[in-house]
């Protein structure tokens, strides 16, 4: 039967995706943001092939002189550090690190947050009380200090940075999704689904989830943006993984080198990358907000 075929889960998922893509695209800022994110994503994937030099190898200029603190030029598009490392290569590799942090912590945290939010909101009662008290406790945890403490205690490793971020950041999405779940739960189509004999899990994942999906994506991109900023801040304070390159880490090296007042290019490129990527993510999420919040869309 043609109709039955069309209703298959994957197809409808693609449909939803296309719909979301359309919405992001209908907003000019969302469109710009979307393509910038894609651009960075491509760089992150191709990073090892794109980087012209080893990021930690001293470079020499064409006269064979050691290329310390060179401003941007054709040979070194983003300039060099005081040790003659090629900032352009560092930037490209850092993009990868940043994406790993953003994507991993963004996705894990949204998975945790969404499920906790869905279950707490749907079941209510004791479960809700327990989960939300727990979320409240996390709200009592100052975010960046927690990341710092955890990293200070367990070591400056990328996985601990991600762990520390994930442990805290899901709280917001859990709360928001819970509120949305409660709102949706009270709507009649959920009662209708129950009256039709849908099990609780079926209601949660098949009936409620698609309705919180825009919100979920919105908070996923928020989480990614927050993770990136947090990692950069922690790195800048010296609580990053010194053995991988990240944008925050590059700025930290600048701060440590004491060349802040000389090497503007060293400051400019990682800062711009952070701002550009995070702004783009926020633009995309703003476009999403219109879906999540149909009241905005009407206007």
């Amino acid at each position: 039967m043609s109709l039955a075929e069309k209703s298959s889960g994957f197809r409808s998922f693609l449909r939803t995706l296309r719909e979301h893509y359309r919405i992001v695209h209908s907003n000019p800022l969302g469109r710009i943001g979307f393509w910038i994110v894609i651009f960075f994503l491509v760089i992150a994937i191709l990073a090892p092939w794109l980087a012209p030099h080893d990021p930690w190898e001293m470079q020499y200029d064409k006269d064979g002189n050691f290329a310390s603190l060179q401003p941007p030029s054709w040979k070194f598009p983003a300039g060099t550090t005081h040790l003659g490392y090629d900032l352009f290569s560092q930037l490209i590799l850092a993009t990868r690190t940043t994406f790993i942090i953003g994507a991993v912590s963004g996705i894990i945290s949204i998975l945790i947050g969404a499920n906790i939010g869905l279950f707490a909101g749907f079941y209510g009662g004791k479960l809700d009380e327990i989960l939300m008290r727990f979320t409240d406790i996390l709200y009592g945890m100052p975010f960046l200090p927690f990341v710092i403490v955890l990293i200070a205690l367990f070591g400056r490793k990328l996985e601990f940075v991600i762990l520390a971020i994930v442990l805290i950041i899901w709280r917001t999405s859990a709360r928001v999704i819970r509120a949305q779940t409660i709102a949706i739960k009270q709507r009649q189509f959920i009662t209708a689904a129950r009256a039709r004999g849908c099990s609780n899990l079926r209601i949660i994942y098949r009936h409620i989830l698609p309705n919180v999906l825009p919100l979920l994506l919105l908070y996923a991109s928020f989480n990614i943006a927050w993770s990136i900023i947090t990692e950069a801040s922690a790195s800048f304070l010296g609580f990053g993984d010194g053995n991988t390159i990240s944008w925050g880490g590059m700025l930290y090296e600048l701060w440590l080198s004491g060349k802040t007042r000389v090497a503007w290019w060293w400051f400019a490129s990682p800062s711009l990358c952070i701002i550009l990527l995070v702004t783009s993510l926020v633009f995309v999420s703003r476009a999403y907000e219109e879906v999540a919040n149909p009241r905005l869309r009407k206007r």
Partner: protein
Amino acid sequence: MLEYVIRRLIYMLITIFAVASILFVVFRLLPGEATLQVISPAMDDAVQDRMKAAFGLDKPLWQQYFIYLKNLVSLEWGRSFVSAQRVIDILQYRFWNTLLLMASGMCMTLVLGIGFGIIMAWKRNSSIDIGGTIAGLVFQAAPPFVTGLLLLMILSYRLGLFPTGGMYPAGQRPDGVLALLMMPAFWERIVLPTITVGLYYITTPMLIMRDNMLEVLGSDYIELAKAKGLKPSVVMFKHAARNALLGVVTLASIMVGFAIGGQVVVESLFSWPGMGQLMVESAASHDYPVAQGTFLMLAILVIGLNFLTDVWYCYLDPRIKISSTGLA
């Protein structure tokens, strides 16, 4: 209202207790030995054991936990591994510095953010609105150390308009907060950190205020207010802004949590002797009692401020008072 406040207060205490317990667990899980920092590797084992005993690290865990809780309540937050000062003494001095900076940052954030938000909603789709939105999003995306560093590089290093950091000129420690506030040098020094914190956090209240205003402006009671023939400014500020503010207040608690994070960065950047700087310093030098105490204090600050925003919200929204007593 009272019921609501008391219940919030109880939640607050439970939360603090829970955070403290989590902290205990986290700090006891740490790899490496806490004593290493105090103890030179050249010291022999007997001396190391003695130092462990001096810091109470030789007792069983559960015993340490109860001692920890008891001490927490009696404000015996231990002594610094490195300076042997009482943690609470260190903190009580740092606390006010942090609060000062935070208050000034938050004031700037809220006053300007809410103000701009109202203006942007009023002049919807104008260049002010669109420019403000984009600027806000960019400021939000720029981590505070980037903004701070930029301000420092331009206004302080290049133009020499502001001092490079600290809270007062070297060697002129004022006696108490009042004396500090009287110092012109203090106000010179608080400008850059305040702007940095402010710029980073202004976006949330600004955009939320704007969106809420737009939402509220579409509501029936605004239409009625207009129908009553009220002046647009009265409609805007008396009727719309107050309702839109409710949404900002609910978000204030989330903001506070994040603001503490920004505070840490800004304090480190501007050598502001607050708890954030202490946090970074003690974590980096593995001064665990201080790191732990500072974290707890920051947590209490966050929880306390969350509590205050709840109460404020309750004050602003008359609907809360009733529903908490179960009549509605």
